[in-house]
């Protein structure tokens, strides 16, 4: 009897098999094949050529610049994200919903528009352009512009991952800590932070991955000066447009590896966070 019994919420075995097969097919065609193509193209002329392309002087400069941009962007958005999440989740003030909307806004703004806005302010014909030019300060077509555009694009990641969790956890524990005499910083570091650390780490990872991989926004503000304002994704574009496919895909493969590591780390983090939540329930 048990073999014949099918729960009311389950579909027929053939339907389940068909659904699973189509899901796997969609994932392979839309997600796995593109990734495989990157590595296949990178290795088409052999591993030494790929490694040579990455160790090229301009590529190394691009890698260095990408690391610098990420190293500035991530801490800025981490601090801002934590502050915003704390203010929104643990305190009351008027205009909260407007603030949340503003924080999420960069997600629905095209990266190109993000880059554009900074050109409008700091560019040669921008609001501050003449003033900056008079003092010989370069923002656009220089590292500061790259950093600003990247901060805009990766702006919501930390806040968005931590805020809902903090809101869900409510204020009970923080209020309890306050009645026990903890200072604001003690409450944060000893009560709030341990509760959200996995989500925080996951937000940082996503922020970092996007910061290193951002293309549209930095493309607008960079000026594509080889060895100076070229980040890795921009370098990929230059090599690709110069028909240096092996080099383009080699650098792309490095970026893809970064994406894969992020993905694996995030999966592990979600797992850790899920297990903790499950254990607490």
């Amino acid at each position: 009897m048990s073999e014949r019994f099918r729960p009311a919420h389950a579909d027929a075995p053939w339907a389940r098999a068909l659904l699973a097969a189509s899901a796997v097919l969609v994932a392979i065609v839309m997600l796995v094949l593109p990734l495989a193509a990157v590595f296949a193209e990178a290795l088409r002329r052999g591993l030494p050529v790929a490694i040579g392309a990455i160790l090229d002087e301009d590529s190394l400069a691009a890698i260095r610049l990408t690391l610098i941009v990420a190293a500035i962007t991530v801490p800025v958005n981490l601090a801002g994200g934590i502050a915003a999440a704390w203010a929104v989740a643990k305190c009351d003030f008027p205009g909260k919903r407007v603030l949340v909307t503003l924080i999420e806004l960069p997600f629905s703004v095209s990266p190109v528009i993000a880059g554009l806005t900074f050109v409008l302010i700091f560019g040669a014909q921008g609001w501050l352009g003449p003033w900056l030019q008079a003092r010989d300060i370069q923002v656009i077509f220089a590292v500061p512009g790259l950093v600003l555009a990247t901060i805009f694009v990766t702006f919501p990641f930390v806040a968005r991952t931590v805020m809902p969790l903090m809101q869900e956890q409510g204020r009970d524990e923080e209020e309890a800590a306050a009645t026990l005499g903890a200072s604001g910083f003690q409450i944060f570091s000893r009560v709030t932070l341990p509760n959200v650390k996995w989500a925080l780490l996951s937000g940082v990872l996503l922020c970092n991955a996007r910061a290193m991989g951002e293309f549209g926004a930095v493309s607008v503000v960079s000026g594509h000066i080889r060895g100076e304002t070229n980040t890795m994704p921009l370098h990929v574009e230059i090599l690709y447009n110069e028909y240096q496919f092996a080099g383009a895909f080699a650098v792309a493969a490095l970026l893809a590896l970064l994406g894969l590591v992020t993905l694996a780390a995030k999966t592990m983090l979600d797992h850790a966070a899920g297990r903790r939540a499950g254990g607490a329930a």
Partner: protein
Amino acid sequence: MSATALLGRRSRVAPVPGLGLTLGITLAWVGLIVVIPLAALAIKPWELGVAGVAQSLAEPRVLSALAVSFGAALLATLVNLPLGLLLAWAIVRLDFPGRRILDSVIDLPFSLPTAVAGIALTALFAPNGWLGAPLMAAFGWQVAYTQAGIAVALIFVGLPFIVRTVEPVLRDLGRDAEEAAATLGATRPQTLGRVVLPMLAPALLTGAGLAFARAVGEYGSVIFIAGNVPMVTEIAPLLIVIRLEQFDYAGAAAVGLAMLVLSFAILLILNLLQRRLRRGRR
């Protein structure tokens, strides 16, 4: 003394400290990075005057680029709705070897840099690519360097948004509603059509909104596969870049502003639609 005066006198005690500091940091951060730059975008085009903005936007090349961007984003979102639902269903409801891997792989478009995705999809769908060659041979379809290519890139970029918004709702749905429908005599298709799908509809709509917003502004993954032929496969963000390269700041800002206004209008409509769907539900 009036009641309001009394209320006003009540000392406002914040149970959890730190509002001043964190709100200060937040406002500075949001103001400098988001509000001021977007204000610049909103103000800049009007240097041309109202007529100038209208003229700048009425150029056939601009109209075509906007149509391509929004049309392809809409098409990609419509394709992504069933695909996203399928993947979410597979992750939550089915058990098969590789399900966990599938679950992780879905986030790939989130963590793969767009430029990488762009050249990868181009290599894949080029006339001599792994998928491009068979499609060409079997149906005579060319995907790369056509509008279809743009749609493919936008499907890639938008897919996880729908999966990840539907997934938690599907998980929360539990078996209760479906079991209740069964005890009331509903067949499986009736249960899916009348109970499950309507319950997922708000989440599907939210995911579609996110995917659409992302797709409209997408640049990196599209420009490699699009071919970028003016009036045919030129997307609006590329037009902004081109105008900037010609130092036409106001013209570029006009296109940017038009894109933002259009996509927010569409998101607003989606939001209203969703509110209708949700009516009565909190």
